[in-house]
């Protein structure tokens, strides 16, 4: 009888141990934080909206929503909005707390992009013929991109004259040998790596000068410079 009582007591101790280890085991009722954003990438300044109502709690309900936006800003509530004024990469975090005080967090990266530069250029000389601007063939044309703008700094000006020739610089010179319509493309790059292009058509009339040697033995036409 005493032996049976011993075994029964031992069994009860084991059951208590099981219950205790069950408590020490994994918390299977942690709330789950989840949210959506109106945008994940945009040019500053912009306002993003965040919706945390997808979050849930296996036991009970969520009683608290806390937001941080990665730039020092914060908010509370299932919905939040935030304005990003400076470019950069920001980590948005939502922390939810359920009625038992258990918390969980979820994050999302938001890219606030630097505004790209604005590319534009002028060229001269040019004449007006039949209401259109035209340039004579073999005439030196000055292309000026100094009117391009950026909130930071433009670090490069790259030209493509449409005749296979290219150049770099804020102000460059070029002349066309053959008549035709050429698309001149200016690509400007700012200090953040942003690029923008501006394209204009240039109408060329006439032909090369009579003394032009296009076989390589006569004058050589350099981009942005005179002949040699």
């Amino acid at each position: 009888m005493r032996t049976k009582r011993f075994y029964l007591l031992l069994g009860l101790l084991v059951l208590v141990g099981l219950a205790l280890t069950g408590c020490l085991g994994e918390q299977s009722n942690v709330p789950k934080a989840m949210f959506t954003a109106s945008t994940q990438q945009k040019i500053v300044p912009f306002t993003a909206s965040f919706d945390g109502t997808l979050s849930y709690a296996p036991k009970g309900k969520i009683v608290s929503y806390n937001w941080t936006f990665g730039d020092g800003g914060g908010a509370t509530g299932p919905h939040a909005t935030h304005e990003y004024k400076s470019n950069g990469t920001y980590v948005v975090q939502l922390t939810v707390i359920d009625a038992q005080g258990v918390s969980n967090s979820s994050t999302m990266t938001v890219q606030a992009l630097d505004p790209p530069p604005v590319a534009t250029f002028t060229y001269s000389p040019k004449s007006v013929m039949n209401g259109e601007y035209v340039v004579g063939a073999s005439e030196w044309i000055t292309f000026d991109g100094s009117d391009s703008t950026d909130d930071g700094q433009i670090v490069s000006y790259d030209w493509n004259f449409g005749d296979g020739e290219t150049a770099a610089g804020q102000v460059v010179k070029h002349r066309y040998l053959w008549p035709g319509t050429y698309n001149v493309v200016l690509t400007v790059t700012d200090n953040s790596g942003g690029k923008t292009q501006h394209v204009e058509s240039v109408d060329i009339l006439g032909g090369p000068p009579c003394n032009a040697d296009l076989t390589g033995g006569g004058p050589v036409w350099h981009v942005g410079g005179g002949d040699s």
Partner: protein
Amino acid sequence: MKGRVTVGATVILLLGAAIAWAGPLELYVGAGPSLATLGAINNGVIGAFNVILTDLNNTPGVTGDVSPLGTLGTSIAYQAGERFWLSNWFALGGGVDFTRMAASTSGSYNSSGGSETSNIDVSFGCSSIGFVVGGRFMFLDAGIQLSADVGFGYYLIGFDSDITFEVPSGYPPLSISPAQGKGSYHGSSYGIQGGLTLGFPITQGFGLEICVGYRSLVPAAMTDAQGQTLDLDGDGTPEPIDLSGINVRIDLSLKMGLPF
């Protein structure tokens, strides 16, 4: 590795001592429903997937209805083993158990006026093989026998996933990113288990038993062959596999005297 060898050697020594000292040998085999917690998978991953599916099912401009995933954890568990009765009331022994559970869903959504199709095809499977050693204390034998079981188990766990979870492009960006593609993860766990058994002797040495038990296991950290941890919802937090839970089993047992 050394720890496992030490434990294994200790178990063999104890069983060997039991064999040398033992009376009748009992063999048993059985099966029955088993319910495992798998909290991180059910409440975390499956819960998150189902919240998104429910929202997509109700999103204007998105047509289609995908059924939510069922929870993972219910299965039929099989066990076989042997016990050596050291006295009329106490036995030592060991056994092997196996269980497998699965959950899946599939469907598709159309959006952008029908020009975009987003496919949903998710399936999870979890299997475990357990090696259990323990004792049985029979504290009532009045024709019907009532016993308490206690044991220590070591489990090898496998988890398979196959996820295609395409969210329509018009749906706002989500803070979680379901892992796409197939995955196969492995881990191990250990813990203690106990329960009560009601035995019904049918003939001399042969009987039927109904066992109700609970096991409490340490949640298993799962990794794949490349060492990547199991993170099905892409939130950066690994999901452990917790096989703690209740099981009910019907066993057939056969008792026989040892030849020595």
